[in-house]
Structure formats: structure tokens, C-alpha cells
């Protein structure tokens, strides 16, 4: 009973705290006025240091212009601030934001803006429908902290968004966010062109593909290659990186992942209260965001992807974080060595477990017959079907002067393995022959088979002989 009451009480208090934050932010007095510092992706305006709410004046200019979507491919982007994504806006809980939406006179289209940080009709869209050559102004108080998407919401909305009209606004919590060495801005979007992926030239928007949700391009920051090569994000070993990641859509959800890294902390869906730790891939919905911190321990190039993989490798959802600095072999050794790996039938190099016991041959003819099977299963891969070997790789067994009539040498070779230079029939070989963990009987059979084929003299090898002359494998 008391437990139930306690739960209810804490729920009520938590609810109280939540609404108190909005109410507090409404009541927070606004001191002074400043012009917003905006930034183009992948950069982010600096963290806010002031400890009070202020009036922030934001000017965003809408510009329709042709730009690069991929190599050789251009697209008419409708942009906030001349680029896709639009400028990153950074304010603090309780701030009063006065937003001017300026529609450049050269533009053809009407535009408006919906910021997910706004509490009010259309997120501002209801007050900002603007014809070319005009400007709309409205203001809002930032009541909730978080990383929010903003986008154009003029009908048809999907088309305005598909043409690149989105960006991020960060409403910092009052206490700010943990400090990191680098903050970067990444925003994913899907693009629908009439031509197929890779088709060159100015590509018009395809309404059919947009409605069917079949994009030709899925990219970060408005173009394939925007975060690769010279445009890659950078950091040094030992530093911490934060990515503010948005997904403008219009349609696809992103499975955001950095190959070779783990997100130490994720603030899922752009919230600023609850974190998730040690996340490999975080889901970012269309019209949503997430931000994440991670430490850099080793150098290298870390690939940023939407882990819906064909989007990364075939449609452009691929970026790079290039890290320089000292290696740390303990954390990541890199390749230690390169070895031969030849799994063949039962005769694996150091066979664990008992191999099945083959039937014992009664006589030489029997040994030759059974030996053929053993040869085919174990030796043929290298020494070839007719014992001809492979020049410069594997010595021949046919008419082999190495074998000669020295059965002991043959037994030692098969049981002990052979490394290093060896000359057979006038040719030098320098390879590795593994030691074979075959039974005495099997070795007797295969050697008898070899000696009785391809001009090798016709000796007979018995299992007793193998047993007597067997050696342990080298090294």
C-alpha cells in the first residue's frame, strides 16, 4: 500500500517537475538581446556560457539554387542559408528567439518554417508563409531543451523537405552539456531524382519516387562525399567527439553508426535528460535527431554510415572521421600476422578429437587401393592428381628423386612436416608442408599408393614401419 503510494507520489512529483520546467521557462526573465551565432555544417556554434535567458535574433535566408548532389550530378536545392542542411542554431532554455525568415527575391517558391523547438501552431509555420522578396518575423520562447529539427512546411511539405529544407536547432539545458573537444553537425536526407543514381546532369525532383519512398540518393549534409576525403571530420587520439545528428528525411529512418567506434553516451532522439551508454547503432527517425559522445583511442579512418547498408554503399550515406595520433596496440593491434589456412578433410594440421578409424588394409594391393582415398583427401590439393605438383609452390611426387627408395625419409616428411628449401627433380622449393596427424595405417596406405604410381619404384610401406620411424611435428 505504502509502496503504491510512494510510486504514485514520485510520479506526480516527476510530472510536476516536468511542467514546472515549461512554466519556469515561460517565467524566466529575458535580459538583453544578441544576434545568433549560426554555423554551416559540419561546424557548430560555440557552447553557450551565459547563465540567463536572453533575446536571440535569428535571420534565416531561403535561397533556391543549383548545387552538387554527387559527382557529376546537380540538383536544384531549396535551402535555409544557402546550404543543405540549413544553419545550426544554438540557444538556451528560456531564451526568447526572434526569427526572421527572409525569402530571397530571386526565389520562385513560397516558403515557411516549422521548428520543432517551438510550442505554437505549425511550430511557426502558421506565421511565416512568405512570398519571394518578402520576410516574415515571429518570436517564440524556448520552453523545452533538446536538439530539434526545423524544416519548411509549405504544402506540398514532402517536396520542400525533399529539396533540402531542413536543419537543427539546439536548445541547451540550463546546466549546459558536458564539454567535449570537437562538436560536429551531421544531417541525413533522402533525395528523389528523376534519373537513376549516378545519372549525370541537373536532376529534377521525382514526385513518384518520393511518394513511393524509393530514393536514388541517401546522403549526409546534402551531397554524396560531403564528409569524405578532404571534407572528412577530423580528431586526434585522446580527444572526445560529439556528433549532433539530424535526419531531415523526408521519409527514411536512419540507423546511425560509426564503424570502429562505440557511442559512449547517446542522448537518444535529441533529448537532454536521459542517456544511453555504450551504443553501437542508434535509430534516428525522420524529423528527429540524436547526439552522441565518444572518446578516440586509436588512429585511423572511421566510417560514418546509415547502417541500412545499401544506402551507405550504393546511395551515398557514407562519411569519414579521420583520426591522427599515436597507435595503441593494446586497444587495437592491427594485423599481427598472415598465415596459411588449409582445412582439408580429416587431416587438419593439429586435429583435435578422434578421426574416424579407417578399415585396415590386408596387403599391398589393399594399401594401394585405400591409399588412393587418403591421397585424394589430403595430398592431392597441393601435389595434384597425378603427383605433378605446382611449379615453384609444391614439389612433384611423380618420379620424385626426393622420395627415391628412402621410405624412412618419406615417413619422416609426412609425420613431421617439412619447411624450408628443398630440391626435387632439379627444382627448388621453399614452402611449408604441414605435419599430418594421420594414423600409422593411413600413412602406410598413402605412401604405398604414391610409391606405386607415377614411376616411383613400387615400394610397399607398412604401418609398423610408419610407427617405427614416425617423428613429432616440427616446431
Amino acid at each position, binding site marked *: 500500500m505504502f509502496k503504491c503510494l510512494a510510486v504514485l507520489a514520485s510520479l506526480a512529483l516527476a510530472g510536476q517537475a516536468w511542467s514546472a520546467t515549461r512554466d519556469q521557462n515561460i517565467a524566466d526573465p529575458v535580459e538583453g538581446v544578441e544576434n545568433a551565432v549560426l554555423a554551416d555544417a559540419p561546424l557548430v556554434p560555440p557552447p553557450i556560457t551565459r547563465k540567463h535567458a536572453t533575446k536571440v535574433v535569428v535571420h534565416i535566408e531561403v535561397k*533556391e*539554387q*543549383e548545387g552538387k548532389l554527387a559527382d557529376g550530378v546537380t540538383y*536544384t536545392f531549396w535551402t535555409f542559408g544557402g546550404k543543405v542542411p540549413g544553419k545550426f542554431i544554438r540557444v538556451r532554455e528560456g531564451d526568447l528567439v526572434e526569427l526572421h525568415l527572409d525569402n530571397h*527575391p*530571386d*526565389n*520562385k*517558391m*513560397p516558403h*515557411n518554417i516549422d521548428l520543432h523547438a517551438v510550442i505554437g*501552431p*505549425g511550430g511557426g*509555420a*502558421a506565421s511565416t*508563409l*512568405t*512570398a*519571394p*522578396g*518578402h520576410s516574415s518575423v515571429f518570436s517564440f520562447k524556448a520552453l523545452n531543451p533538446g536538439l530539434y529539427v526545423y524544416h519548411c*512546411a*509549405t*504544402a*506540398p511539405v*514532402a*517536396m520542400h523537405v525533399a529539396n533540402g529544407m531542413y536543419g537543427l536547432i539546439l536548445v541547451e539545458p540550463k546546466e549546459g552539456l558536458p564539454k567535449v573537444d570537437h562538436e560536429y553537425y551531421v544531417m541525413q536526407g533522402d533525395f528523389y531524382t528523376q534519373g537513376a543514381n549516378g545519372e549525370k546532369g*541537373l536532376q*529534377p*525532383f521525382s*514526385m513518384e519516387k518520393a*511518394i513511393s519512398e524509393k530514393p536514388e540518393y541517401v546522403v549526409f549534409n546534402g551531397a554524396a562525399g560531403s564528409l569524405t576525403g578532404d571534407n572528412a571530420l577530423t580528431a586526434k587520439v585522446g580527444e572526445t567527439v560529439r556528433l549532433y545528428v539530424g535526419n531531415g528525411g523526408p521519409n527514411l529512418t536512419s540507423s546511425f553508426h560509426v564503424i570502429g567506434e562505440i557511442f559512449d553516451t547517446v542522448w537518444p532522439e535529441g533529448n537532454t535528460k536521459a542517456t544511453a551508454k555504450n551504443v553501437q547503432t542508434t535509430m534516428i527517425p525522420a524529423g528527429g535527431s540524436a547526439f552522441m559522445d565518444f572518446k578516440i583511442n586509436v588512429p585511423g579512418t572511421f566510417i560514418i554510415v546509415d547502417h541500412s547498408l545499401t544506402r551507405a554503399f550504393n546511395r551515398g550515406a557514407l562519411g569519414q572521421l579521420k583520426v591522427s595520433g599515436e597507435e595503441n596496440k593494446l586497444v587495437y593491434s592491427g594485423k599481427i600476422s598472415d598465415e596459411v589456412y588449409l582445412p582439408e578433410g580429416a587431416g587438419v594440421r593439429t586435429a583435435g578429437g578422434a578421426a574416424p578409424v579407417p578399415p585396415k588394409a590386408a596387403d599391398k594391393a589393399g594399401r594401394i587401393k585405400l591409399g588412393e582415398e587418403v591421397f585424394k583427401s589430403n595430398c592431392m590439393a597441393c601435389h595434384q592428381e597425378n603427383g605433378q605438383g605446382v611449379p615453384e609452390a609444391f614439389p612433384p611426387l611423380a618420379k620424385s628423386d626426393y622420395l627415391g627408395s628412402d621410405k624412412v625419409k618419406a615417413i619422416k616428411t609426412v609425420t613431421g612436416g617439412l619447411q624450408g628449401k628443398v630440391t626435387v627433380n632439379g627444382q627448388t622449393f621453399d614452402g611449408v608442408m604441414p605435419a599430418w596427424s594421420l594414423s600409422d595405417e593411413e600413412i602406410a596406405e598413402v605412401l604405398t599408393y604414391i610409391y606405386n604410381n607415377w614411376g616411383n619404384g613400387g615400394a610397399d610401406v607398412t604401418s609398423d614401419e610408419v610407427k617405427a620411424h614416425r617423428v613429432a611435428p616440427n616446431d
Partner: protein
Amino acid sequence: MIKEGLLLLSAAALPCAAADMATLPGGNYSPFFVRKAAKPVAVAPFRLDTTPVTNEEFLNFVTTHPQWRKSAVPRIFAEPGYLAHWRDDLTPPGGRPHQPVTNISWFAAGAYCAAQGKTLPSTDQWEYALTDRGRDAGAVRKQILAWYAVPNGAELASVDDARPNGYGVAGLVGLVWEWTSDFSAAMAGPELRNVGDKNGGLFCGGGSLGAKDAADYASFMRYSFRASLKASYVTANLGFRCASELPR
């Protein structure tokens, strides 16, 4: 008195019906934003200019109606960008007489039409002319989307380049946006910014409005554009043409 006399004289001097007009038969058409009754709208037969009004035609108008020149027009009728691309009151851009005139406000467009004994077409009349009884609907939509897909060019095309549709009307799309007499009705209807919302009940009536075809992005854009305008606005790619009733 003198002023009215001048008007009389200039009216006499005006070339009658400066643009060619096509006669459109009446008919039912389904407007893009379907209204309460969800019935097709009946459009009575009417006449419509075959092309948008050009720089040359508008020059004739301001020559004889000096109160509409850019140095004289009252601000209530046209914002400061009115005819911005004209070098002065009587000098349109050189060598472009047949370009659609732009940077024209709704009041100026209406006054021009009135001077011809015409009016701006209603949105229904304009859209009816565009639907062209469904002829080449796919090609028209493609043409519109292609026009949306490129930024404004440095130069507008000439009206002479526009091909007439089945009604003989040319250049409704692909050239410039065009004023209609009731452009603001676009806002009073579906409340484009908050589809389905009555904007806090601040609209009388007209509740249940929705788009006929949610996949018709081309039309959505046209209605959005109209909704963004005020009557005194001008934009660099907004022009007009005139309509009239059938002669009796």
C-alpha cells in the same frame, strides 16, 4: 474634371482588347481543394487572355494612366518593389516587350484589366482553363514540376514561346505565377499551414476542406504560393492575365 477628361481621351486612345482572347465553354470542374459539398464547381462560359500581359502592353497602360506609374502609385496599391525591373516609369527592360510583365501588384493588375473592360480571372476560372478538360494532364504536371525544378532564370521567356492548350490558352504554367481576383480564398479555405486545422476557430465556416489529390504536388504549390501573397505584393516571377464575360 480635367482629370476625368484626360481619362476619357486616353480611353479613346487605348487599343481595344490588347491581347487576344480565347472563349472557354462552361463546364463542371473539380477544384483542387474540394469544398463542403464535394460537388464539382460549375464554371460559366467566359473569355480569357491567351497569354499573360506583357511589358509592352503594360507600358501602354501606364502611359495613359500615370497614377499607375512606379513613381506615382500609392503605397496602399503596390509595395516599393513595384516594376523594380523597369529602368524608370516608362522604360521596361530593353528588348523584352513580349516578356510577361512582373513585379506587379494585385491592385495594378486589376486596374489594368478594368481599363480593358475586363477583370482578373477568378481562381476557379484560371484553374478550369488549366485543367483543359484533362487533355495532356500528365504532360502539364510534368511541365510544372520541371519549372519548379529549376531556379528562376536570369531572363523570363517570351509569351510568344508558349504553346496554347486545347482551349487556345498559352503559358498558364512554366512562365510566371499569375494573380487571380480571389487569390486570398486559398487561405480562407484549407488553412494550408495547418492542414485540417481551423486556425483556432478564427475562420467562419468552410470547415471540411481537403485536397482532391494529395499526390498533386504541382497544384499544392500553386495554392501555397497564392496563400503567401498580399494584394500589394510584387514578386519577380508573378504576372497576370485578364478575363471577361462573353459579349452579349
